[in-house]
């Protein structure tokens, strides 16, 4: 493209970084190279633990506490950042190189107003007078399409939404007009509908100022919209690197292909009129704020119903009502042709046994001081009264079902990987021998490949045991992979329910259309086309 695009801005050579955890040093990066030209956007992708965030921070010559660069050079405009003193690096940070973090909510100081934080780096470097910087920040807010750009800076971080905060952080990064911005998973914590707005705002502003960027994410479809080139990392090593179009159409390595493998699970849809569970016209509230408004959903026996919607749509609240954790204020729940009492305490042990739930964060859903044997064994003893040797036999049986073995019996949750933890949670739910399992965002915290394993396991268990699933998620790809029926929720109401094929294909109600069209596709022109289409 333009000639200055070929001018080298950043070159990282043979980067080795070690991190200290569990009383020993681990290799995080094992000799990765990276080149970035002016005005160019490089996408860094890989699953968690691949070292992509570490690489992004190393591009600033920074490592997190407990990590250190043991070998390699980071040449920024020809200067090796690794050899600079803290003070010299500080002159570059926030002025020449800016950083946009994953969780905007956690990355803003709650004690200071947004404007103050937006211009702090530029102010410190005395790039301009405070008044001019403020004026410039307001212009940046405006070009990032923030509401009320003149006054939004007078608010505190807790007073604006997550998507707005992420855009304000982009304004903050842009305020000193850096030569390079590191985007570290900036949209991962956002809903798909918000993600589209943030992505387009970030892309247009980076283009406007011709800023070079490193865009770190685990979502290939997202990076496809942003990056000129993509580099794939795994276990601290480079897998491959190519131009975006090339990478998408013709990935060379098996690993790269597997990154979007969830999208390859296909399940033929089926349904029936024999409902395992029906909820009829349910209202529910937290204190005085009403969150569910007349929700009605039918769950056919032995099938999977996916409930989708953005955060705050009432998906998880619906699950809490079904389990009895949050009694409804109106309406009734019919479970296997019998009406369920609203409150947990009023339900019989048998009713409790038949409905189980699996949570999003396996880390917090398990007692860290209990072994796998105790975690899975407890519901067996509690619901079925099986003790001693027989109980252990049953636990091993369950472990086999979730594709683990008896060597796991004595392990603590801290000695398991994320995927294994979620499997143990599944086994714990199965231990009760339930008819209905509610899966609340069970794969959201997991990597693409691990996700695939869990989803396949859930499908297999359904086939073998005939268990019914309610699958709560915001991830449309997962929904496509696993569901028979889909329920779309928005602001505490059901927008529509129906067979997967009916919901995913037009015509759609407005909200479903917005939700589905916001899911990034593996097409570099997807965002551009979408924005064109929406602006008409």
């Amino acid at each position, binding site marked *: 493209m333009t000639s200055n695009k070929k001018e080298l801005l950043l070159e990282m050579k043979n980067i080795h970084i070690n991190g200290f955890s569990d009383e020993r040093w681990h290799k995080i990066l094992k000799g990765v190279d990276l080149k970035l030209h002016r005005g160019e956007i490089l996408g860094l992708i890989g699953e968690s633990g691949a070292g992509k965030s570490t690489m992004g*921070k190393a591009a*600033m010559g*920074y490592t*997190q506490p407990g990590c250190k660069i043991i070998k390699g050079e980071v040449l920024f405009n020809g200067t090796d950042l690794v050899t600079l003193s803290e003070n010299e690096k*500080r*002159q*570059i*940070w*926030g*002025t020449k190189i*800016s*950083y946009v*973090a994953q*969780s905007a909510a*956690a*990355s*803003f*100081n*709650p*004690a*200071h107003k947004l404007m103050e934080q937006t211009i*702090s*780096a530029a102010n*410190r*470097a005395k790039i301009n007078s405070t008044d001019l910087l403020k004026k410039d920040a307001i212009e940046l807010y405006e070009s990032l399409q923030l509401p009320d750009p003149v006054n939004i800076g007078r608010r*505190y971080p*807790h*007073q604006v939404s997550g998507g707005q905060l992420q855009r304000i952080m982009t304004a*903050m990064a842009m305020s000193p007009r850096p030569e390079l911005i590191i985007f570290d998973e900036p949209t991962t914590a956002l809903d798909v509908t918000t993600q589209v707005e943030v992505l387009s705002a970030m892309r247009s502003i980076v283009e406007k100022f011709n800023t070079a960027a490193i865009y770190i994410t685990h979502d290939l479809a997202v990076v496809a919209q942003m990056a000129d080139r993509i580099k794939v990392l795994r276990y601290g090593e480079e897998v491959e690197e190519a131009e975006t179009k090339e990478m998408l159409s013709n990935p060379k390595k098996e690993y790269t292909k597997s990154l979007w493998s969830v999208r390859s699970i296909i399940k033929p849809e089926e349904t029936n009129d024999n409902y395992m569970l029906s909820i009829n016209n349910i209202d529910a509230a937290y204190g005085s704020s009403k969150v569910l408004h007349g929700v009605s959903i039918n769950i056919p026996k032995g099938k999977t119903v996916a409930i989708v919607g953005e955060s705050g749509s009432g998906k998880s609240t619906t699950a809490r009502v079904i389990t009895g954790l949050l009694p409804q204020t109106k309406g009734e729940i019919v479970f296997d042709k019998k009406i369920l009492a609203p409150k947990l305490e009023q339900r019989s042990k048998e009713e409790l046994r038949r409905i189980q739930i699996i949570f999003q964060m396996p880390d917090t859903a398990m007692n860290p001081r209990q072994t796998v044997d105790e975690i899975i064994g407890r519901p067996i003893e509690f619901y079925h009264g099986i003790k001693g040797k027989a109980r252990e036999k049953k636990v091993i049986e369950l472990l086999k079902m979730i594709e683990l073995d008896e060597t796991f019996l004595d392990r603590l949750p801290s000695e398991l990987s994320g995927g294994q933890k979620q499997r143990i949670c599944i086994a714990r739910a199965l231990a009760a021998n339930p008819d209905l399992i509610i899966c609340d965002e069970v794969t959201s915290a997991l990597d693409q490949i691990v996700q695939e394993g869990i989803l396949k396991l859930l499908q297999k268990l359904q086939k073998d045991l005939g268990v019914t699933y309610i699958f709560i998620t915001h991830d449309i790809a997962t929904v496509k992979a696993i569901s028979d029926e889909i329920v779309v929720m928005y602001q505490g109401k059901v927008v529509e329910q129906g067979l997967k094929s009916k919901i995913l294909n037009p015509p759609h109600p407005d909200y479903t259309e917005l939700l589905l069209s916001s899911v990034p596709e593996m097409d570099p022109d997807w965002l551009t086309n979408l924005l064109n289409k929406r602006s008409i």
Partner: protein
Amino acid sequence: MPGDFATEILGQSATKSSVAALRSELGLDKHPIPRYFEWLANVFQGDFGSSFSGRSKVQGDQGDRSRQVVELIIPRLKNTLFLTGVSALVAIPLALLLGISAALFRNSYYDRSATGFSLVTVSSPEFFTGYIFILLLATLFPVFPTIANVNEDTSILQRFYLTALPVFTLTLVTMGHMMRMTRSAIINILSSEYIEMAKLSGATRYEVVVNHALPNAWAPIAQVITINLAYMLIGSVVVEFVFNYQGIGRLMVGSVYNRDIPVVQACALIFASTYVILNLLADLIGIISNPRLLYPK
């Protein structure tokens, strides 16, 4: 404690009838519950009653020399507030300074010695610390007086000089706690993501600690400061006794000894309300320093 003012003052040789007479004069023969409500009603009207001591000790003595409780307490309270105030003025800035600098140079030798030393001072009871000071600064090197004997005529400078050792003692026993809490509150916040963000936008270590961490640490720091302020006021019971300082703590101990209940009650009321008021103040500071509580969404 066995006995009451009447048995205590009249001694073992007193006749039953004289004890009964004194009791009925003081109202000690009434049922405790109505007595309590009577006292409470009077307190709400600002009447703390009059002290038992100073009354006609022997039957037939002329006149009643008993004093109002308020009259007794006010000068003593002033003395105690002076002692506590000066100690607070020394201890709080020092604790904040040490705490912030320890957080700034975390894990350095400075940090380790400061936190180690503060652990020692926190763990030593104030009578022990007080006697160590007397040994060092009054006996071996007689710089300051052992006895902090002040009266209404003592000049302000003289007061500073006389109360030096009690002030040192109170400072030392409270400062460690405040300093450690300040340090850990800041260090706790230093691991937040917005601190990393601040570092990556080029903030210096000083800026990170003072501009980014400290504003978010005020709530726990205020909590520990106010608790220690209350502790100073109440801890003065021991310190005043050690240094023979004419404060409210000594008054209370003396009154307990005499079973002079109205004075004891008034002192207890002062101590209790100090805790309540200071805790309220800490909560208010917590709210004011936190925009999330101060400004609605």
